[in-house]
């Protein structure tokens, strides 16, 4: 929670808050849950109230989308007050079993999906993948992400990436089996000790490699490495930045056309947290035949899919419409054929919502890399 020398108020700079309401005014979760982050920032000033605040169910409704932080005129991060309260619960050990199992799996197996470390590279079977050796120079060092490694729905992102890299003659290598979770969800769930350990261990592991840059396949790894790993020696980019470069350099050859209307969903960890808005759009527009549409809520205002902030392991008590369902309905109103994103969590939540709404026949949710796999010569 706090160190002896630092109070909760000091740690989260609660006195810096002017209670302007910009945070709650932009919070996407307020439409479906009782979460009022401005009130938490106000009430957490009273240290005697912290235990009571930490027990409120709504602290787990925050998706850590960072809209509140983006909008805060004082540069504060109101969501981190909620993470601080979560950490009090985590330290007591009395978390939801799903959260417990995910955290324990990160500690024991290096991923939150309760999968064995030995199976981390099973997705590579049948592919010609270059594996990095410590000290050996490589331009692009790939960090795959636990979800892309293990979830059969999104493994396609990593598989297609390999095929395209091989075809385009890119100097690349993927990390060996020792690759471990970036800790994005560990941080937002509030397991401070495990996150500190993750930062130390991953910094030491990644710094052994001699790369010009690390390329992440998930925006969550991208933002976490850029924000929370001060001693990481490599710059970090997201794969959409690399693919955008390859297209600009004419290194990708298209096969066939995709005469479809695609609406691009900005993942929170890529857009509003990572500042990457244009590259994914340029990639999609490059695919022959594509008509790119835009949501009303786009770029910094993009509506969160509710996949972040540990929400893959915590079910909201709210029975209101999920934000991913709202997003899919918006896409339907736009008459989009495809909802594209470049984040494993967004793909999983949006696709669930699409199926739940019964739009499977008329609409598709796709990772950008999934579309590239279908329309790039590889």
């Amino acid at each position, binding site marked *: 929670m706090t160190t002896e020398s630092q109070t909760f108020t000091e740690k989260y700079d609660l006195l810096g808050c002017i209670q302007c309401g910009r945070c709650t005014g932009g919070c996407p979760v307020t439409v479906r849950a009782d979460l009022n982050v401005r009130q938490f920032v106000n009430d957490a000033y009273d240290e005697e109230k912290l235990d009571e605040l930490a027990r409120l169910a709504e602290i787990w409704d925050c998706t850590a989308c960072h809209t509140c932080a983006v909008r805060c005129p004082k540069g504060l991060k109101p969501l981190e007050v909620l993470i601080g309260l979560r950490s009090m619960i985590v330290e007591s*050990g009395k*978390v939801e079993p799903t959260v417990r199992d995910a955290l*324990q799996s990160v500690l024991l197996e290096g991923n939150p999906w309760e999968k*064995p470390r*030995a199976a981390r590279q099973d997705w590579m079977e049948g592919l010609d993948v270059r594996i990095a050796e410590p000290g050996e120079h490589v331009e692009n060092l790939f960090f795959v992400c636990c979800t892309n490694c293990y979830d059969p729905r999104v493994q396609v992102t990593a598989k297609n990436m390999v095929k395209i890299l091989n075809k385009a003659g890119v100097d690349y290598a993927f990390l060996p089996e020792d690759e471990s979770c970036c800790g994005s969800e560990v941080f937002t769930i509030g*397991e*401070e*000790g495990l996150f500190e350990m993750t930062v130390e261990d991953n910094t030491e592991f990644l710094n052994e490699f001699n790369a010009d840059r690390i390329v992440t396949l998930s925006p969550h790894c991208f933002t976490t490495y850029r924000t929370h790993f001060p001693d990481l020696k490599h710059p970090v980019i997201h794969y959409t930045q690399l693919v955008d470069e390859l297209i600009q350099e004419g290194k990708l050859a298209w096969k066939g056309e995709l005469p479809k209307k695609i609406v691009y969903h900005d993942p929170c960890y890529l857009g509003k947290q990572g500042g990457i808005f244009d590259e994914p759009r340029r990639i999609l527009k490059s695919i022959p035949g594509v008509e790119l549409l835009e949501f009303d809520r786009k770029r910094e205002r993009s509506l969160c899919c509710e996949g972040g902030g540990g929400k893959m392991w915590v079910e909201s008590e709210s029975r209101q419409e999920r934000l991913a369902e709202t997003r899919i309905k918006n896409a339907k109103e736009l008459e989009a054929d495809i909802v594209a994103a470049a984040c494993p969590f967004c793909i999983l939540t949006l696709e669930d919502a699409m199926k739940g709404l019964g739009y499977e026949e008329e609409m598709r949710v796709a990772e950008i890399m999934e579309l590239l796999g279908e329309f790039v010569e590889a």
Partner: protein
Amino acid sequence: MKTFVCIKYVPDTSEAEVKVNPDGKTVDDSRFSFDINDADNYAVEESVLIKEDKGGEVDVLSIGPKQSEVMIRMAMAKGCDKATRVEDDRIADHDPLIVAKVLAGAIKDQEFDLVLTGCWADDDGHMATGVALAEYLGVNHASMVKKVEVLDGKVRAHRELEGGLMEVLELELPAVLTIQTGINEPRYAPIKGIRQAQKKELNVVNLDDLSIDPAEVSADASQVVLENLYIPEVESAAEFIEGETDEKAEKLASILVKGGLV
């Protein structure tokens, strides 16, 4: 209250294919992840809940390799006070009676009120260790316990029986209880707690330290001989019976009669 909780480090076979090694007697565990046996995890939580309610001390006891210490430290992070890990290649650990004999050897010279352990192990599934341990210690026992109430000098154990029946027993202490999963909700062991648990006492001992005669717990002393391990073959496909309800019932009855099953 002085409680011992006996735990086992087991492979998780749910996420990796089980392959028998060419010797036909061991399993290739190179792709498994290992963790505390599920039922033992509930036993740890119950022992900590009893300590939180009644005070006292909880000692962890486990037979296992060095790698299992992470599991032991996690139990101590949750509230267990100290631990003993027994490591000795001479133990015929495929035999639950031998395992129970070693555990009893580690406990017998100490005062205790309760010994908790999981009702079965996820790897070999004998469901015998806890009961045999009670026998070796010469104390009362109850198996498949779904609720524990500690009384004055006694314990009330709610046992889960077949068909959903619950049997309620009162046992004089000391006693051994084998804990059924679902009795509680095991807590998370935070890293800060695991780090603090590094300061707690963890003794690593062998048979000589426990004054157990190796000849009594070796493969030669075991009455269980592991002959062969194999993956059962799928012998036939499922048959889906089509038709209206009456028709389906008639076809099903006919199949059962023909097969000599009724």
